[in-house]
């Protein structure tokens, strides 16, 4: 691995930058545009032990029919599921243009040996996953075994073949922004196509300073290498307001190139409906009720 130079991050300063970004007032036309954009960036997610094939099929239908009574809505970008559901989802989403993203590498803990992880990755890719969301070995990272972590990511990347690799840092376990930055640099150097905050299983998940820190790492990586790496905050983003705030953060940190599902995703299960309610409200002028929006 090539990166172990620490880029320090001042937590208070990062928080202040976030507050300033989040105080942008997004109104009228710019809000409608942002809401539509947010929808198209969602990785509609279900990652529960009790997930059934039925539920995944329903989710896939929702993914391409977000709110049929309202015309000209985009679809979400992908659905994100466990490995055993990949073939079901792939079939259900056929022809929609919506990607199938599978978590892998002993999600969410990552507590398995490397070979088992690689086998799992290969199998989800074979089953048709377009995107693989791996977790890093946080234990190794926190012990300072950066080379191990980096090497593991590189091997997973290789196992992915053409599938896009999202590397989940599980920032809630890395605790400091210094660690978040280091893990981001390390993941990008090792071949990540996207870096992603969280599994959703650990609290805190995607906090704004963490997302900002990762976006800044992505920006610096592009300056250094010319490569554009994608970003996916996941967990804890449930409202349209949050989504729009993150779009502001992207625009002012990375620029408009990243305002695309190719380079930015929201990992969320309940965000879509809140965005939908806002879109309908912007159009009708009336605040909406959840009763009018299908849950999946």
């Amino acid at each position, binding site marked *: 691995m090539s990166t172990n130079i620490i880029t320090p991050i*001042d937590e*208070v300063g990062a928080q202040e930058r976030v507050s300033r970004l989040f105080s942008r007032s997004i109104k009228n036309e710019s809000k409608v545009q942002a809401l539509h954009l947010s929808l198209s960036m969602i990785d509609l997610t279900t990652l529960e032990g009790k997930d059934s094939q039925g539920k995944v099929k329903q989710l896939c239908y929702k993914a391409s029919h977000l709110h049929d009574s309202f015309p000209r809505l985009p679809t979400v970008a992908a659905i994100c599921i466990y490995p055993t559901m990949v073939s079901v989802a792939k079939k259900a989403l056929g022809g929609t243009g919506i990607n199938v993203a599978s978590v892998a590498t002993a999600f969410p803990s990552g507590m398995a040996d490397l070979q088992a992880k690689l086998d799992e990755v290969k199998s989800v890719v074979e089953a048709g996953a377009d995107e693989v969301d791996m977790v890093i070995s946080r234990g190794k990272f926190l012990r300072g075994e950066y080379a191990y972590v980096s090497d593991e990511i590189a091997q997973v990347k290789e196992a992915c073949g053409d599938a896009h690799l999202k590397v989940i840092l599980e920032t809630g376990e890395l605790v400091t922004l210094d660690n978040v930055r280091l893990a981001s640099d390390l993941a990008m150097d090792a071949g990540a196509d996207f870096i992603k905050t969280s599994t959703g299983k650990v609290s805190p998940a995607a906090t704004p300073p963490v997302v900002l820190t990762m976006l800044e790492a992505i920006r610096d990586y592009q300056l250094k290498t010319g490569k554009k790496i994608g970003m996916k905050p996941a967990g804890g983003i449930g409202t349209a307001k949050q989504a729009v705030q993150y779009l502001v953060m992207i625009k002012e940190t990375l620029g408009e190139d990243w305002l695309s599902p190719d380079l930015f995703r929201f990992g969320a299960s309940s965000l879509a409906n809140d965005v939908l309610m806002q879109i309908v409200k912007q159009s009708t002028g009336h605040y909406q009720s959840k009763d009018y929006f299908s849950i999946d």
Partner: protein
Amino acid sequence: MSNRINIQKTYKLFIDGKFPRTESGRYIKWSDSKESAVVNICRGSRKDFRNAMVAARKASGSWACRTAYNRAQILYRIGEMLEGRRDQFMAELTLQGLSKKQAENEIDTSIDRLIYYAGWADKFQQVFSHVNPVSLPYFNFTVPEATGVVAAIAPDDTSLLGLVSVIAPVIAGGNSIVVLASESFPLCSITLAEVLHTSDVPEGIVNILTGYRSELIEHFSSHMDVNAIIYCGNDRNDRKLVETNAALNIKRVVQFPEQNWSKDQHQSPYHIMKCQETKTTWHPVGI
């Protein structure tokens, strides 16, 4: 009576830890009331003051950076040395018209004053510093810091105590000083300089000039490298001149009226604070 001829003292200036004569070559004849003793006092010039200022500026930074404990010990050492020179000060003070008892009292008080400020040197910062509870995630604290170089016109009506009372709080606070000694009673000033010279006071921290107030006050108050000016006296024109000239570079102005310096109320940590700046530092609190 022996036939031996006494060695008489030459009264010089004290600049940069050395005892030069005034560069101007001028002198002021000083005699006691009975005219039994006549000495030549240096009539310090604008250029002497300038030289003293250069020395004081050069010295000031490292003095402020010493530990407070070290400054305290040096002030205490001045007191020790002064105690050891009692006889000489007695002779000079009585020659300048004080009774034996008055002279003794002035020496006692001067020594005690040095010890008083020696004790404050490592405490005033503690007493006057604050941690400020700001409404933001920052650690915010305020400390006094030495103003820098102080120019002082010492009280005219005392030879030793006034000089000590002006110098001690200034250097206890980490400043360097150029001080004009009493014009009317100049004898003790150079003896005090000898005390300072043997007390581990770094060169340039205290510089003592003798001469005419009327001649030097203009230069003391107008020099652009002086950070604070102390004026002791009641002359309204002098005060106005000092305050007006202070505006040239925004000097801090400290004034003391004629007063009985032997009283305890004229020693105070607030006197140290008169030649201190207030520095506030902010730092984020986070991980």
